[in-house]
């Protein structure tokens, strides 16, 4: 009986909610263009139901991403530390904010973010969605050092933004929530899936003997054994989006995930980065300590530092690692570079 009433009420509500859409305008839905190398191999991306991708939302998000209006003094945008030609990171170990103060972490490249299934962003997983991630840099004193009230006021008084928000969200009233939603929509369009290795996987090109041997080193448990954390040809994200201590330090000045969870067993754990686009994202690691891929490979080969939270997948730690031969190191590097995607950094829809 109650159920029937609910049903009737719901139905009335349904009709009402339809008829209350007065303007008749709706932004144009634009689902992500999912590359076949992804749809053939991995589960669909995460799009929040309350923030569907639209043409107008993405366009607004892009404008905001490149606009210095988000910073307190109009000198920096998101793109200052996330630049398209660096696969949306920068080329310094850590980055300076608007006051010239450097942070402690390496800026992260931005691509394939909708496929971060756990939705834990930043090196230590602090941000629990892309929308929420985007709130933080605006107010961070060593990044854009602004505050949202001021940003919203500036946007509201801007000659173009109110109309752009109306087109994207059907309202002229700008809020922090709508601003971060638009930025997140743009970030989700940053898809990289056209590397040499992708084309090899799809049978469109060949790898050299050296690159193939590098893949072998990457996959062999008795050599690199990189694939348990950094994906494999059937997981073309080239990351597990999980947190590990890969043996960089024996004691930690930055606790990483441990700072967030409060669990000492998580100290020194950071997110495994994707190995796509390494050609453009140097320097490497959460603090940008390695300038080159050679240094990274040497780290895994003979530079491992022991600690109680080092990942059990790390081998021969007493000897510093698995001691790859010079040839295997060179081949591994050649393979890693096949995961870089020039069409991603050249894509005009990602440039200002």
């Amino acid at each position: 009986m109650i159920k029937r009433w609910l049903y009737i009420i719901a139905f009335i509500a349904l009709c009402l909610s339809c008829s209350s859409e007065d303007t008749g305008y709706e932004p144009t839905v634009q689902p992500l263009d999912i590359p076949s190398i992804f749809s053939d191999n991995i589960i669909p991306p995460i799009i929040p139901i309350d923030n569907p991708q639209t043409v107008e939302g993405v366009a607004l998000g892009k404008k905001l991403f490149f606009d210095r209006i988000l910073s307190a003094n109009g000198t920096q945008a998101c793109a200052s530390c996330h630049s398209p030609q660096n696969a949306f990171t920068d080329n310094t170990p850590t980055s300076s904010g608007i006051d010239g103060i450097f942070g402690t972490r390496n800026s992260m490249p931005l691509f394939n973010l909708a496929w971060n299934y756990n939705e834990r962003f930043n090196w230590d997983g602090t941000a629990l969605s892309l929308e929420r991630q985007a709130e933080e840099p605006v107010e961070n004193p060593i990044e854009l050092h602004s505050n949202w009230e001021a940003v919203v006021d500036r946007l509201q008084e801007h000659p173009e933004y109110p109309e752009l928000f109306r087109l994207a969200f059907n309202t002229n009233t700008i809020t922090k929530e709508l601003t971060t939603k638009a930025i997140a929509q743009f970030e989700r369009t940053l898809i990289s899936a056209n590397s040499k290795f992708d084309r090899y996987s799809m049978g469109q090109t060949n790898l050299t003997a050296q690159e193939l041997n590098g893949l072998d080193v990457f996959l062999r448990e008795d050599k690199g054994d990189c694939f348990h954390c950094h994906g494999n040809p059937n997981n073309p994200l080239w990351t597990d989006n999980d947190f590990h201590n890969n043996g960089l330090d024996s004691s930690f000045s930055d606790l990483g995930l441990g700072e967030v969870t409060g669990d000492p067993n998580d100290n020194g754990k950071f997110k495994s980065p994707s190995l796509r686009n390494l050609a453009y994202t140097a320097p490497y690691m959460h603090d940008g300590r390695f300038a080159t891929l050679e240094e990274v490979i040497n780290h895994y080969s003979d530079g491992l530092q022991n600690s109680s939270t080092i990942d059990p997948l790390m081998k021969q730690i007493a000897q510093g690692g698995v001691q790859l031969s010079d040839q295997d190191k060179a081949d591994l590097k050649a393979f890693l570079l096949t995961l870089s995607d020039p069409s991603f950094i050249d894509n005009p829809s990602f440039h200002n």
Partner: protein
Amino acid sequence: MKKILTPFLIVLLSFTSCSEDLDDNLSLQNLTTFNFTHNWDGTLVTNANFNNIVYTNANGDLLSIERLRYVISDIMFTSSNNEIIELDVYNLVDVTNNNNLSFTLQTQIPTGSYTVSFTFGLDNEDNAENYLDLNSESFNVPDMLGGGYHYMQFDGKFINSNSEEQGFNYHAIRAVDNPGMNPTFPQDTFFTIDLGVIDITSNTEIEVQMNIAEWFKNPILWDLNDFNQMLMPNSTAQIMMYDNGQNVFSLGEVIQ
């Protein structure tokens, strides 16, 4: 959007709850749920117990568990008159992240008495499939080792004979020799777990217990000093895992 969604959900809910009422009266189909629990010789293990070197295996080595996940598949219900309900399903039990510890079958099971069994890992046919969810979990086995998926990934640390902490990677896969373009397979290493006879008279929850200590115990006394890492390309180690795996699982509580 939200405005429309809520009443829509209510409409949907009222439809589904109506039809459930009907089902209860008309059919003898039962929902079956498998609950996977883990213990170390009888002491409950959950991810809250991970990362501490507190377990002693049969060989006397102290160890910790840092990651534990495994696939079970092809659940079978065999009735007393040998009618078989074979379900082509799989479930990745992820103890580390507390995911899929409970697995409810989509297919409902008619009331009756059944021998219930399932496969640890994936049989060779299933192992040759492309499972998008397992790929997304990076559960793959590299092609030169035959491809397909891990059956189990069990990582931890133990105190080795030099009294040092050392990692171990007890990764069960299909045993393989001659890694490369044409690997060969000495014997199958997936296996069937028989839970015995279970009466299904109503919706049923079946507890499946894994005694983690058994992986190191019987019939092979596992010495982590000899077998700790790089076990995927080691078919001897894989066959030892297969042998020890036979006694790892057992039926726990059945709740109707």
